[in-house]
């Protein structure tokens, strides 16, 4: 037995659904981590989550219509992101309210579409696939589109990189400095929509937040410059995704007949990374000053 087989089970890489999951999963993880760092820095985690939930309406509509779910997620997420930036609510509290209302509407529509889907009977697994992901059922035909989407998102972030950093420091400062703050915000929101759609394809609309926020949050616990934060977030997200796929594949042998969901393993690994990141930053606490008795 090769040592590699201790980690990578036999047949793993020869399996087409696994290969598709590895490729699409890596794309989703990388893009989510990169975009996520900025989403966290800008304090827009909730918007990211809402966008994912709203996009599930698109995903379930796609199942109903029999088109590629990625297109469904993408279309609705991009529309919602555009609408959110267009509304241009500056006040953080009001922004949260608008986001919350939108999230509710999106999930409501999703509920309706998934219900219609079960009535038709043909898409009984759609609810699980849309909400919690189903990596080993991603069709291989989606790979070129997924890679294209990932590429566009990464290029978009690279283009707005500096104004994006400056405006996460302070929007006023960025605007005074001559940066195109609104345009930057819009491009970031669209990149967020792309990231969230890819993540929704892999770990599902609801768990896509974990892929978006988790690695970024873990990296920001210790990385103290933007490049390193990005590199660490990518490393954590990517490793968790491939690790999760591997464990899920393995789990077919643990409980014969059925495996555990990939999404569970990915999210669990990200959570562990988050906890470890806290340890990396941990210093022994100074003994508290005692008051003289």
């Amino acid at each position: 037995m090769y040592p590699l087989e201790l980690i990578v089970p036999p047949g793993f890489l020869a399996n087409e659904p696994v290969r598709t999951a590895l490729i699409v999963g890596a794309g989703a993880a990388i893009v989510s981590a990169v975009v996520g760092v900025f989403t966290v820095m800008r304090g827009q985690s909730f918007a990211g989550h809402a966008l994912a939930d709203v996009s599930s309406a698109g995903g379930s509509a796609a199942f109903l219509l029999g088109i590629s779910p990625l297109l469904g997620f993408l279309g609705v997420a991009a529309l919602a992101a555009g609408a959110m930036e267009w509304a241009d609510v500056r006040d953080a509290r009001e922004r949260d309210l608008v986001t919350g209302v939108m999230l509710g509407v999106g999930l409501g529509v999703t509920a309706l579409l998934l219900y219609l889907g079960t009535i038709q009977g043909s898409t009984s697994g759609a609810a699980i696939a849309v909400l919690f992901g189903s990596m080993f059922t991603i069709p291989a035909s989606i790979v070129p589109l997924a890679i294209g989407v990932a590429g566009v998102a990464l290029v978009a972030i690279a283009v707005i990189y500096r104004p994006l950093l400056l405006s996460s420091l302070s929007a006023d400062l960025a605007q005074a400095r001559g940066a195109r703050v609104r345009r930057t915000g819009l491009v970031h929101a669209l990149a967020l929509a792309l990231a969230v759609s890819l993540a929704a394809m892999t770990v599902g609309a609801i768990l896509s937040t974990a892929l978006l926020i988790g690695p970024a949050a873990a990296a920001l616990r210790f990385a103290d410059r933007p490049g390193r934060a990005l590199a660490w977030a990518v490393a954590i997200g990517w490793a968790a995704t491939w690790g999760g796929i591997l464990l899920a594949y393995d789990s077919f042998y643990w409980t014969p007949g059925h495996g555990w969901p990939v999404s569970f393993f990915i999210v669990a690994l990200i959570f562990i990374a988050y906890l470890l990141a806290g340890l990396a930053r941990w210093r022994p606490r100074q003994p508290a000053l005692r008051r003289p008795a």
Partner: protein
Amino acid sequence: MTEPAALSVHSLSVSFSGRPILKDVQFEVAGGEFCALIGANGSGKTTLLKAILGLVRPQSGEVRIEAGAGVARIGYVPQKISIDPYLPLRSRDVVALGLDGARWGWLRRSAAREARVQEMLEAVGAVDFADRRVGQLSGGQQQRVLIAHALVRRPRLLLLDEPLANLDVRSTAEIVALLRRLSVQYRTAVLLSAHDMNPLLPVIDRIVYLASCCAVSGKADEVIRTEVLSRLYGYHVDVVRVHGRVVVIAAHEPEEIRAALARDPVHTAQVP
């Protein structure tokens, strides 16, 4: 005037939802001049600075910044900026963003860029915390970093909104001296808002005083006089000289304070 005006504001009026904040404000700041913008809370100092920057749209009037210069030639340090301690930006990165943060595209390192940033960090005395996250610095340290961010492109005009609020007496003196030195060194005109003019008196060339929407502007030695200031403040103040320094003090408690005290007397704390 030998130098052309770095900034001229012509009958500028700003109102928010119908409420006038600034009316017909008019003044000039000459190149390299150090100018204090004085006014009480809510008198419109921040609004005036934002109108100069183009962040607030005026009802009427005009702001002219020295020929050929656009918004990018102004450095700006905003009044309150709360920086998230998790933000992965070191002081060094913040200063570097002052250099090219508005440009599209990925960061490209260059020795010249780093040298410029280092020089600026040294100039404001921020070398000791250059590699720490800016969100974890104290208010005074952040102030220095933001000044470096604003000055790193050598703007002809530097706008600072209450840079001395939140500073202790010693840091205040240090920052004032620093600003004056940089203003002379880089020939940068400075317009700095504050509500207390005392720490600024040793260095300012000009004062713009804002009250009830209007601005009065003059050379420092024309304005810092007992009669002029008393008229502006609306109560008697004395301009006195001690230890070779000029100090402005309210000779009597202003009417409002006395009236407020009469309504709501201060109770002495009970000591058991």
